[in-house]
């Protein structure tokens, strides 16, 4: 299976480990990634550009979709935020032909046109829907039995449900849990798994942002999680990078590794942790990895 690959800014910037892990995992799963197809595709705007100028943000996303259409490949993301922003833009573009025409007018300068045929998909959905959970299971060489992972989706891959077509694809609401179970681990249920990590207000209201980090990581930790797993690199940045601040705010230790979805899958596929740069996290994964090494 071949996809036009849209890694997003964060996987190319602050989370290089996500990028590496994705390449490793996709290779084993037979997902062929064409990054050239979307060469020069802009940032989705991450919901922030939308605050300044919605039409502009939608035009940039339409441009990305037009590039994907040109390649003839389906579009894959590895970031919940990219997924959500793209899906919402796509909904506006495909629901209203007049709006799409207006956007295409701008794209025409570059000789591009978006016809409305793209359905952007996160790696998580590709694993659960396109490959299928059974296929994933067949590739597993190392069951992560005895480990407990807390799923953290990130807002943009669960809301708004209409743009993300959750009603048509109800399994999307449980996909992360399915993956955790398929790799042989146990799911830790906790109240925050579909709530906000606090990233968008990281600089605006650090206290609120870090309180969110503290609440989610503590809830998961206290329910026995060995790590939290997320399909969103922005959630990762906040939950991982600001966990020390959150711990200080909550006046207690937390120490909960936050791992990316492909890193979790990669461990079960037998990929060496350092190839997925699991040693490059702020909250150390050392303990988790050493337990993994000794676990049967």
């Amino acid at each position: 299976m071949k996809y036009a690959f849209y890694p997003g800014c964060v996987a190319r910037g602050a989370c290089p480990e996500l990028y590496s892990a994705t390449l490793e995992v996709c290779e084993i799963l037979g997902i062929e990634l064409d990054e050239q197809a979307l060469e020069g595709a802009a940032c989705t705007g991450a919901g922030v550009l939308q605050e300044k100028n919605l039409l502009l943000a939608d035009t940039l996303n339409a441009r990305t979709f037009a590039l994907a259409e040109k390649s003839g490949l389906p579009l894959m993301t590895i970031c919940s935020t990219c997924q959500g922003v793209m899906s919402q833009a796509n909904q506006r573009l495909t629901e209203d032909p007049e709006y799409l025409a207006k956007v295409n007018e701008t794209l025409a300068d570059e000789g591009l046109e978006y016809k409305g045929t793209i359905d952007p998909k996160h790696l998580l959905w590709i694993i659960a829907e396109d490959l299928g959970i059974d296929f994933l299971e067949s590739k597993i060489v190392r069951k992560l039995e005895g480990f407990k992972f807390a799923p953290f989706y990130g807002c943009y891959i669960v809301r708004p449900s209409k743009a993300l077509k959750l009603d048509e694809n109800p399994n999307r609401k449980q996909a992360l849990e399915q993956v955790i179970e398929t790799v042989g681990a146990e799911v830790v249920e906790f109240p925050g798994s579909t709530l906000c990590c606090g990233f968008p207000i990281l600089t605006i209201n650090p206290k609120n942002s870090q309180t969110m980090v503290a609440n989610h990581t503590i809830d998961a930790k206290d329910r026995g999680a060995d790590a939290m797993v997320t399909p969103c690199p922005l959630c990762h940045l906040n939950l991982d990078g600001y966990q020390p601040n959150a711990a200080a705010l909550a006046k207690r230790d937390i120490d909960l590794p936050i791992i990316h979805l492909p890193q979790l899958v990669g461990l079960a596929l037998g990929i060496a942790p350092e190839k997925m740069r699991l040693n490059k996290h702020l909250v150390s994964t050392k303990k988790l990895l050493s337990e993994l090494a000794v676990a049967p």
Partner: protein
Amino acid sequence: MEVNFKVQRFDPESTDLVSHYQNYQVEMTESSTVLDGLIKIREEDDGTLSLRCSCRAAICGSCAMRINGEAGLACNTKIVDVIPSDGSPITIEPAGNLPVIKDLIVDFQPFWSKFKAVEPWLQPGEIEPEGEYLAPEEDMIHLAGVVSCILCGACVSDCTVLEVDDNFLGPAALAKAYRFSRDPRDESDNQRLAQLNQPGGVWDCTRCMKCVEVCPKGVDPMDRIMLLREKVMDAGHNNTSGARHANAFAKFLKNSGWLDELRLPVLSFGIFNIKAMIGLIPLGIRSQLAGKRPPIFHHKLSSAKEIKKIFEKVESKK
């Protein structure tokens, strides 16, 4: 069909003052709503169960509560849509982020205080018209999408910011503020927008879309908050971390096509915000050690030129 409800009960006159769950089993039809079920329990099984409800038609806003953990109106939620597939009961809890008075009844006082804080009434100019104010139909149709808010509190119940910070005005009050700010007859924009630019205002929203998801009337409170942010910045209020963030974000995109994660937080906090800058240092050092720091030299995307052109073209239309 037989339906099981698990309802959170709280009796403020009890000695232990702890809420507990009570299970009820009722016979309902395919077309019954959650409210039908609760009324049936109240009328036939347990008269002590307390909840607010009135119109049964999703217009009075009385019966917002959490159904299987998510806020909604009991009256327009069909039982068949919320019965868990694993056979467990439908869980009914009071709305969140507001103090519980009894059973499913919460204290709306904080809700109304915030509603009142945005001065929710039309503030027209000095000159009174002879008859009605003239206003374009498309503006009125747009406003009708917000005026249709029934103040049920579902958005407030599930707001992820209110969960950690009582000071946030919250989605309902901010949507209301937008309704006036966007009204062509209202002339108090400067003052309204300055107030909304304060802490607890438009910038504290974390864009989690919970309010959009749970709103039973399609008001899309978060989208209104984003439009308020745009208005706030357009009115020249650019000296908040949020505005700086949005402006810097747009600037980076315009110039290079993607994000410069090294410089963005610096510009968002404000280069003179020494305290926040110092706060960033540990993260910087930690990132450096972990090898996670974004590239120091932010390269442009190959099509940066084309992207900049799109910016210029679309921005010129605004």
